[in-house]
């Protein structure tokens, strides 16, 4: 009976994921998957010998934390929140593995259980500290720049070797010593894996850690031969890997390059050609005159829009332009922001019409005929060096070709290089104007100008 309910739960997860794949059915898909989770929990609790007080206490505390966090987080803080939830799932699998060592299911561990047990602890531990570092970087509680030092990779390899050796020893005597060691080593390894990765590469890291948390759950499933854990964990593991692949492709880089190159650090080499020329600033009033006479405008949002919380003002400006007879679209690069699809969520929050959101491939062919491209807090995804400068670290990355538009207006706080630390020749282009200042204040100034 229990197995039967687990099958239904697995089917609900599969259907849920499938429906998450298109905008119309996504919310329903999420509900289906939540129902599957509820069924799996209820089916598990049909049985005897449960310590109900502890279970209810745990569920009450966990639900309270989860619900409050989910309700309170602003949409701009979404990447951090996902990282935290992900870390929470990772460490849960670690605890499940550890508890299975202390109190083995079936009274006595076998080698076939010990291997996934050890894996659940290690993958769970790496997911936990990796996600925490990602959270700290995303919320700018620590510097988002890649941290690199001499011997870093040697330390990582040594940690990995020690983890492997500990795992081997654990399968011989099932001693708790090896598990405690594995917890400590995997925590250290998780930190080592994420600190060398820069903030701009966070979409890749988050997707990858998501995949890990699924694999950790999967390993926990193998300890107790539980099919619903294995199926659900494997689904998440696979989906995380696919997303990771999509993110890497959008940056024209391999996964190993993202993980090990320390992209954007000072000594990453190949900082690209020095850019010559002078950036031409523009005032909000002059920008208004340009926009007022434009018949097609493309907005290119980036992480800066999220930081400035400018999405509502941007939406208003878009609506005013449209009322003025102008064709408006929002070109969204797959890795804009700090999380896959970050910009889409923000613009959806601001109620930007769905059909105005376009992908780079849709907008690039018409760029030369576009009157104005407005770049709001985006940098690397519009850097023409990716197309023109073979020595640039960004070389080969698909970008949005805003430099080809008749006029390009860049909203930026200052002339500093982007997150990746690469100079942007776009700022010095003949047809580029810099509207310096806080993105939200700048956009609001334009909105006011239109209304008057």
């Amino acid at each position, binding site marked *: 009976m229990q197995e039967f309910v687990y099958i239904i739960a697995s089917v609900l997860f599969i259907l*849920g*994921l*499938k429906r*998450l794949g*298109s*905008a*119309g059915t*996504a*919310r329903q898909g*999420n509900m289906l998957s*939540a129902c599957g*989770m509820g069924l799996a929990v209820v089916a*598990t609790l049909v049985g005897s*010998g*449960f*310590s109900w007080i502890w279970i209810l206490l*745990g569920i009450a505390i*966990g639900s309270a934390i*989860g*619900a409050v966090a*989910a309700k309170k987080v602003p*949409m701009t803080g979404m990447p951090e*929140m*996902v990282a935290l939830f992900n870390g*929470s*799932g990772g460490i*849960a*699998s670690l*605890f*499940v593995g550890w*508890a299975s060592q*202390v*109190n083995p*299911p079936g009274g006595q561990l076998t080698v*076939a259980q010990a291997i996934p047990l050890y894996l659940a602890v290690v993958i769970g531990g790496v997911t936990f500290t990796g996600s925490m570092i990602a959270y700290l970087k995303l919320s700018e509680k620590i510097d988002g720049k890649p941290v690199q030092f001499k011997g870093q990779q040697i330390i990582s390899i040594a940690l990995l070797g020690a983890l492997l050796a500990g795992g081997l020893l654990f399968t011989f005597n099932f001693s708790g010593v090896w598990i405690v060691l594995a917890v400590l080593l995997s925590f250290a390894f998780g930190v080592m894996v994420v600190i060398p990765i820069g903030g701009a590469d966070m979409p890749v890291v988050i997707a990858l850690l*998501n995949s890990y948390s699924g694999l950790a759950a999967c390993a*926990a499933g193998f300890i*107790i031969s*539980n099919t*619903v854990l*294995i*199926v659900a*964990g*494997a*689904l*998440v593991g*696979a*989906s*995380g890997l*696919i997303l990771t692949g999509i993110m890497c492709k959008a940056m024209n880089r391999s996964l190993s390059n993202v993980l090990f190159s320390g992209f954007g650090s000072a000594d990453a080499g190949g900082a690209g050609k020095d850019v010559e020329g002078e950036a031409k600033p523009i005032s909000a009033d002059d920008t208004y005159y340009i926009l007022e006479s434009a018949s097609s405008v493309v907005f290119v949002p980036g992480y800066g829009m999220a930081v400035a919380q400018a999405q509502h003002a941007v939406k208003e400006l878009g609506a005013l332009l449209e009322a003025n007879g102008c064709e408006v679209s929002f070109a969204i690069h*797959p890795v804009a922001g700090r999380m*896959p*699809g*970050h910009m*889409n969520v923000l613009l*959806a929050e601001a*109620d*930007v*019409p*769905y059909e105005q959101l376009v992908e780079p491939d849709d907008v690039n062919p018409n760029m030369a005929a576009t009157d104005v491209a407005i770049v709001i807090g985006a940098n690397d995804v519009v850097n023409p060096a990716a197309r023109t400068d073979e020595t640039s670290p960004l070389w080969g990355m698909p970008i949005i070709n805003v430099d080809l538009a008749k006029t390009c207006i860049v909203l930026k706080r200052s002339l500093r290089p982007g997150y990746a630390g690469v100079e942007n020749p776009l700022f010095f282009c003949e047809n580029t104007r810099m509207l310096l200042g806080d993105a939200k204040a700048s956009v609001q100034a334009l909105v006011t100008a239109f209304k008057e």
Partner: protein
Amino acid sequence: MLEEQISLLEHLQRELGLLKEAMLQHQAEMMEAAGETAAAVSGGGNLGLTLFVFALAIFLGVELITKVPSQLHTPLMSGSNAISGITIVGALLAMQNVSGPAAIILGLLAVITATVNVVGGYLVTDRMLGMFKSKKKEEV
């Protein structure tokens, strides 16, 4: 003549008794062996079967996700993150027939963290998708 027949019958009876005993013993041995085989098969078969399920689920996951449009990447990620909270099932089972403070503390921590992942993950995904949906309505 009669005595001969009686002794023959007694002999037969003895033989039958021995035969019966032997058969019973054989039966017991067979059953034991069969039990062992069954246990071996189900044990080995379980691992094989679970690995099989794992492999299929990985491929299914790849097929499901490959075609998702980029604007849904965030809800997809946070939705699948909520699914990884399925480890709550493992956490609950760790609380079955639990004994000793160490196991209880570990189990409790597992239940708490897994629940945070499940409840928070689903709610935040729903909140995000709610915004996507309201926009859809406007279109219609």
